[in-house]
Structures are given as C-alpha cells and as structure tokens.
C-alpha cells in the first residue's frame, strides 16, 4: 500500500542513475584531464589541484550515495540528512570543476552541468523525503 510507504521511489531511481552516471563522469573527466595535459601547456602546480578535486569528489560520492540509499530505504532521516550535507560538498567541488578548472572544455561544461542538475533534483527529493519521514 503506497500510503504507508514513506520511501521515495523517484529518489531511489535518481540515486541509482546518479551512481552509474558518476562512474562515467569520473572516467570521462579523468581522461579529459590527461588529454589536456598532453595537448595544452599544463604545469604541475595547476594540474595537482584539479586532480585533487576530482579525487575528493569521487571519495565523497561513495558514502553520499550509500547514505542516501540507506536513509531512503530505512526511512531514517539521519543518514539522509548526512547525505544531504555531503551533497553540498559535492556541489561545491562540481562548481569548481565547472568554473575554476585550468582548462574548461565544452564537454566539461556539459558533464558538470548535468551532474549539478542531478544533484539539485536529488537534494529536492531528499528534502521532501526527510519532511515525509519526520512528520
């Protein structure tokens, strides 16, 4: 019976798709950074922060998705809230890669914009789910 189930199905689907998309995003961005370092002049002290941000984002993504799934399925608001907090961090890193990378290619813009849209939608759904769980 749907009325007694508080878990959000759209959130679950979105988290699932987000996970798959993130794997593709991570590999594509890494490949593009390698391409940029070969084709353009990319000194080491500019390359290091970009790579660090990308790796940090990958490290944040795993607990973020896990907590999101767990919170949604167990209908607990604490993991979901934590996931929301990690999402904020991921958003900041994504904005860095979109605006303040050393070279921002058009493909970078597309990938990051898509990821930001997914984060925004996710955050909205999480807030709704938390509101549903709390009440």
């Amino acid at each position, binding site marked *: 019976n749907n009325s007694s189930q508080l878990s959000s199905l759209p959130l679950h689907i979105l988290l699932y798709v987000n996970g798959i998309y993130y794997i593709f995003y991570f590999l594509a961005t890494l490949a*593009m950074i390698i*391409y940029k370092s070969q084709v*353009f*002049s*990319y000194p080491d002290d*500019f390359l290091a922060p970009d790579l660090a941000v990308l790796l940090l984002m990958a490290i944040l993504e795993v607990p973020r998705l896990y907590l999101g799934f767990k919170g949604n399925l167990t209908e607990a608001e604490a993991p979901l809230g934590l996931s929301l907090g990690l999402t904020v961090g991921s958003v900041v890193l994504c904005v860095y890669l979109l*605006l*303040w*990378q*050393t*070279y*921002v*290619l*058009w*493909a*970078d*813009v*597309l990938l990051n914009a898509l990821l930001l849209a997914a984060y925004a939608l996710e955050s909205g759904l999480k807030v709704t789910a938390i509101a549903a769980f709390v009440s």
Partner: protein
Amino acid sequence: PEDTRDAAQARARSAPAPVTDVAKLCVCDLLVAQCDVNCCCDPDCSADDFSLFTTCSVPVVTGDSRLCSQKAAVYSLDVEANPPERIFNLVDQVNPNIFCIHATNYKQALYLKSPEIPTPENFDRLLDEYGGATFSAEPDSWDLDAETENPPDANETYRYEYGVPVQTEDAFLRLPSPVVSSWCSDANPAGFLVNQATKCIRSVSVEKCDSIQALSMLFYINSSILAVSMIENSHKAEIVNITVQSIIFQSLNGMRTLLNSSDVLRLPMVLGELCINAVLGVNYHITYTDTGEIIEAAAAFVLGAISKEALSIEQSFEISFTQENTQPVPLSGNPGYVVGLPVRAGFRPQGYPFPAEFLFAPLALSSSKHSQLTILQSTSTQDCLAAQGARAPVLFGYNMISGCKLRITAAMKCQPLAQTLLDVLKGQSFPEYVASFGNSQAQDVLDWVPITQLHISEQVKSSCQIPVSLGIEVKWTKYGSLVNPQARIVNVTATITTTTLKQLPSGRERIIPVTSSVVFTDISSPAEPGYKAWPTINIKLPFDFFYPFV
C-alpha cells in the same frame, strides 16, 4: 615625483602587454606609416590604395582556433564593385568541436612566455647566465684532470679517432682560430684527422713584440704531442716532438723567400722601427699510422716583419694529416669533377708513346702548382709587368676573368714584350693535358684531354703582334647514369688573341688592357634513358625439318 618615478620604473620593468584584439592585429603591416601592398588589414591604407589591390594576403585574423567561440576579423576585397573596395567584418567564429576550450583560468595557456626583464635585483644572475660571448662549456673543462673521474685500466691506451683533440703533455695542440669575432683565440684544439685552415687577427705592439708569446716560433713548437690519446697519467705515452720543416721569410711588401737552413730557431726581436721574425703563419703537418698513432709532426713557419704603425697582424694557421708511407694526391672529384675543385692538368714527358710507369708529371702533394691549370690573378697594382707571378687555380665550374693593364712606352721592343706578355698570360708552365675525370690516374693515357691552342691575330701583316687576351674554354659533359651524372671534361681550348703594336712617337705612352678568362660550357646532350632490351625468341628450325618435301 617619487611615486611617478616608481610607476615609470614599474612600467619599464614589465614588458608591454600583448595585443589581443583581432581587429587591431595585422601581420602583413610591415612598413610604418606606409601602405603595404595587398595587406587588407593595414590601417595606413586609404580607400584609393584598396582599389589597387588584387587579393588580400591575410584574409582572416583569429586567436587560437581551439577556443569555442572567438572573434575573427575577416578582410576581403569586393572586386565586383568599381573601384574595388575592402570589406571588413568582425564575426564570431564558433568551433563546433566538443573538446573546444570554453574558458581558461591559466593566464599563459595560449600565449608565449614573456622573457625576464632585467632589474637591479636579478641583473647579476642574468649576467652570469647569459653575459658571455658563448654559453657553451669553457675550454678549461677539457683538462685531463676532469676526465680522471672515470679512470680506465692503466694498460689501456686509446688511439686517436676522428675529431678527438690532439693531446700534448699538458693540454692540447693549439690551433689559434677566430671565435665569435676575428681575434685569435688560443684555446682551440686541433682535432685528429680534421684538416683545418684558419685566419685570425692578433693585436701587437712593436715595442713589446719580443715578449708577446704568440709571435714567437717557440710558442708553437714547444709542446710535445702524445703519440696516442692517453687519459691515465701513470703510463707514459710516447712523445713526438714538433720539428721545424721550413721557414719562409715574408718581407713588408709581400715577397716570400725560403730559408735554406731551418734548424735555427729565430725569435722575434725589435730592429729599429720593425719587429722581425714575427710568426705570420704556421702550417702543421702530422703523420699518423693506420692504427691511429701519431708518429711525426712538423711545422712550416712564415716569419715576417711588423712595422711600427701596425696595431694588429693577421696570422694564418693550417693543419693537415697524412698517413705514413702514402703520398696523397688530391682528387678533384670521384669520378666526375666537383664544382669548386681545381682542374687537374699535367705534362707529357719526353719519350711518349713508350709506356712508362708514370706518364704524367702531376703526382705531387697538394701545394704543387704544376698539377693545376692556373690563370693570371689580378693584383691591386694592376700592372702586367710588375705582376709577381701570382696565379689563381682554375676551379671547375667557376667562370673566371682577370686582367691587368699594360703601359707601353716608345722604348719597348716588340719581341721581348710579346714573350713577357705570353708568360704573364700563360704562366711559367702551362700544361699540355687536362684530366677528363676528377680522379684520372696518370697511367691512363686516354683519360687525359689535350689542350688545343689557337691563335687569333688581327692582321696578317708581319708587324709586331703582342698577345692581349687568353681565353680558355672548357667543354664538359654529363657522363654516366641519369640519376647521378658525373662531370667530364671533353675539350679544352686555349685561345690567344694578338693585336698589332703600333710604334709610338717618343715620349708618348699607351695603356692597353690584358685579360684572361676561363669559361665552362656544358655540352651534354639530353639524356636518353636506356632500358634493357626485350628478350627475343630465337627459334631456328633444323636444316632438314621439312625433309622430304624440301
């Protein structure tokens, strides 16, 4: 006042900012304040100038093409309009590639690096790095001590290889040569088997000429050459002393005489207003074995006098290497003549056509003038009778013309004058044969082309005829394969043109020009490619094939 000065200094310290506005960039605008032809972006051109252009040499000015969207200045000529006018458009160029650069946060990404501007703080460092005449390693670092870092076996000797500096007991055999400027640098080592000839200028002063080391013979022969290239100092290598082969004295007006006894060392000394016995040239001859050891070294000196006004003299140095027990014959090509090498010539000794071991005389070392075809060399005085026999070798492929002026007075007699002029034009020993190939051997009679001598005289009358011009025409052809043709001399004709010498009234004199020239003419017929013959079928029926019908 102070802060404006600081601001001005700060402006001077940084290089001017690069121009990045495409509307203002113009690569073909080379002339300042003048219109460049066919340069549509030149701001100095007016509408009248544009009407004379035919095309735009620079049609588009853009930034880096990898950017996603950028401004482009497009220049074109509208030839339909009358008069033609220039059209300038500022368009947005879009790069559709998905990997185009959308933005960069790295300033030098797409621009060249600006060089460091010298300031009082970094001036010393920049001077150390870039202040010398050259940036390469100093010759002092070639000391033997530096190479003992990797000591080889004590018994191992290193024979000389091509290009390795010839070692002496303490350093290397010096061949002074000009480095960067024309002044002599004594730090240039002579390389093994590298034949070199250098000329450089040395500053001198007549008062101190006996103390200047580089002017004395001792400086060039006191080093002892090591027979092999030794690196380990414990094992002594054989030492070859440099002997004095010959000494030539050169007087102030350029006349050279060979000294008979060359074993006395002559050091420079001040004699009145001159400094005599100063070294003007050294010619090293090194003999080596085929295992890379030096066995003999000789030096031929040219000593001269320096006058008081001279502040610098030109010294010339040469080094040549000869293998032992060989007599090198310089070839002028192998087999065809090489452009720029001297034309080889020679004489036929008496007794031809009996076969002899060496039929022709020219087997001699490179400096022999008898083995070359020579023409008169123009001198600065331009006087035929004062010419000291200076001759220039005829180089294959180089047409030459030279001459002198002959001053005829009434007192000159015809016959001696004609003979003198003939000597001046033809030289002391004008050869009879010229080698048709650059590597023709003296034994191969058919490889030598006789020189045809022609006489052209103006009038048949038996008045006085003096030769006034010698023209040597060398006809050569391309010989051999189509892809690598060799030059071969086919015909040499020496034409002497004579003119009548009219008797002059006493007291008058005439000046007539005397010329000699060499012309090389290519008479090769167009090449026809030759193909292998098609195989033919040779069928012959037996004699009695149609028996019994035939």
